[in-house]
């Protein structure tokens, strides 16, 4: 298994399959994992979060604890970064404590790459700037596979602020690796520069895409103000690119609605659309724990999950 997970591209399709299959064994008794496994007893996982994210941090924490690892939460506020200890100093401090894995969330793209160069522990990227969020992509892939069984030929529409989204980047590379077709939907101001190089289709017309999509994946939309604003108002964004229950009727019967959370209800998705039966948004959250368990398990434990016997 890989030493670091900095980008979803650190895995190949077989590696992704292995993570997803291992996650499934942890969910053998149902989506909520109640059992605790002894695999990582004696190992220490540090959650190094430079951005507040209760959701992702908690998911990693639960995953590590279900595998009997010790978990240390190391939260650093934005202001401390500006004047206090540098990332390198912090890395060396954590390294000196002797830990096995560092889960890092950081507002700077590439911070996990830098960290990996300074420590001997495994580094897991829990979201860096506009770069990647590979464990989000893994849990999204897991959720999609739960419903469709495979990826080849699936059409996935990712809607919204692709340019600034680490979730979009990891999902696009991951979905492509697994054989899905990706279409990016939004105004050109929200598409990344030189998107031609991404190997995806792009369009500004969500209603043309929905009838063909197997998955519609909505990204969180935030308003930048001033002359650099990417859309004039959230109201206009919502009207032209948001998903409401009426627009969702354009979807095929078996199509899924996904969102990485937290949702801006009424902006990229309305409450009624988020609560449609085809919405798997809460499944994504539950699956996150299983997928992160699988990843920690494979990166730090190295044994086959089927040999494991729960301790509780």
């Amino acid at each position: 298994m890989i030493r670091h997970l900095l980008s979803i591209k650190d895995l190949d399709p077989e590696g992704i399959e292995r993570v997803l299959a291992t996650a499934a064994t942890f969910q053998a008794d149902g989506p909520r994992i109640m059992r605790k496994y002894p695999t990582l007893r004696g190992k220490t996982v540090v959650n190094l979060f430079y951005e507040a994210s209760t959701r992702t941090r908690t998911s990693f924490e639960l995953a590590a604890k279900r595998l009997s690892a010790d978990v240390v939460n190391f939260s650093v506020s934005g202001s401390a970064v500006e004047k206090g200890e540098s990332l390198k100093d912090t890395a060396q401090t954590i390294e000196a404590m002797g830990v096995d894995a560092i889960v890092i969330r950081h507002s700077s793209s590439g911070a996990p790459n830098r960290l990996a160069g300074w420590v001997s522990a495994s580094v897991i990227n829990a979201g860096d700037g506009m770069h990647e969020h590979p464990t989000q992509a893994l849990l999204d892939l897991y959720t999609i596979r739960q419903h469709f069984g495979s990826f080849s030929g699936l059409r996935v529409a990712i809607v919204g602020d692709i340019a600034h989204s680490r979730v979009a980047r990891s999902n696009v590379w991951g979905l492509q690796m697994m054989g899905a077709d990706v279409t990016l939907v939004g105004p050109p101001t929200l598409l990344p520069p030189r998107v031609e190089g991404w190997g995806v289709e792009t369009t500004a017309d969500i209603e043309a895409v929905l009838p063909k999509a197997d998955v519609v994946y909505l990204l969180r939309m935030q308003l930048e103000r001033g002359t650099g604003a990417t859309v004039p108002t959230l109201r206009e964004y919502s009207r032209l690119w948001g998903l409401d229950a009426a627009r969702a009727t354009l979807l095929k019967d078996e199509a899924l609605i996904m969102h990485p959370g937290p949702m801006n209800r009424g902006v990229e998705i309305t409450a009624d659309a988020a609560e449609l039966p085809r919405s798997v948004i809460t499944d994504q959250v539950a699956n996150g724990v299983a997928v992160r368990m699988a990843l920690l398990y494979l990166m730090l434990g190295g044994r086959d999950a089927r040999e494991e016997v729960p301790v509780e």
Partner: protein
Amino acid sequence: MSKAVVFRGARVVDPASGRDETADVRIEGEQITDIGKISTNHAEEIDCAGLILAPGFVDLHAHLREPGREDAETVATGTRAAARGGYTAVCAMANTDPVADSAAIVEQVVALGRAAGLADVYPVGAISVGLQGEQLAELGEMATSSARVNFFSDDGKCVQSAGLMRRALEYARAFDAVIANHAEEGALASGGHMNEGEVSSILGIAGIPAEAEEVILARDLALAKLTGARLHVPHVSTAGTVELIRAAKARGVRVTAEATPHHLALTDDLVSGYDPVYKVAPPLRTRDDVDAVRKGLADGTIDCVATDHAPHPPEDKEREFDLAPCGMLNLETALGVVVTELLDPGLLGWLRLIEAMSTAPARARGLDGHGGPIAPGTPANLVVFDPATAWIVEPEKLASKSKNTPFAGRTLKGKVVHTMLRGRFTVREGSDADGQR
């Protein structure tokens, strides 16, 4: 009195006189006294077979960091690096702390250069007070001070206001001074940390498009034409910039331009590991841009090579890419990069290379005594280098106080053997010299 020196049998490449031939060069005191076939007459003889002798290099653009950031570089360490790179004249950029926007600061920088005695230091004055881009600095005070500043730049900061830029160009004409504007439109570049392109798109780093440079340059060229003033374009980084300068020169606009070793050699894909050693302003661009900048330098559209030598201590560079400062070391590696990347592949010859490293920058700033000609009666500001010897760049061996070279581990061809400043060795036999002989 010091003994005369004869450099014996060097290939003398001197664009100012058009000379490119094997010859002996005799130095007495501070001056060149003879050139041609010379008998050794009460002189120390230095064998230069296989070596090139040229006018000492001239750098229009270096950050020596003093006053203010002596932890990164000082005038003494920066000019030591310059001497090792074959330079005899270095223009020190204005973004010091305090900013070089007054006569007192520019005179201090000159004095520090004299005290070090390793290269002539010519300060660049700020265009605007505190580099703030709001109010014209006292260009006249700096021009008429003992530092005699005739070159102004808010380098690192672009003069955003077209009105201020027009006034600066107009006012500079009173002193026949040059205005060098870092071309980067603020709103287009805002938040960017690398070239906007395929690489930044994948890395998720906010980009600075080539057009941020080009829209300001197009404006500045129009203003240079309007005012009849002299504009210098620092660190050309895009193919579009090369085209704009080419067209402006054809129209008779008084413009000169420089390219840095890194914009001649390196591309934006190096940023892929997020190492800020590759972070620089303007950013490393694409292969097409590098090819255009090389071609522009070879054909003279870009007049000269300037280093934009920008030292930063390790703690500033060893951090997250977006939080690290811009800049790279270059003084000690510039010759090697230009020889390896441009001369060796046949993009330019020795006369053009020496012109770009010495004669053209000296002319752009009117630096008498630098850039040749190598002729009796002129100051002995010279470099002698081995064009063929390959060497590996080892950051810890550089003279600069900082180690942020993007060329670490690279094999370069072209190594300085002697550097001479007004008849005194600053580098001798490849080793630091203190000016004695």
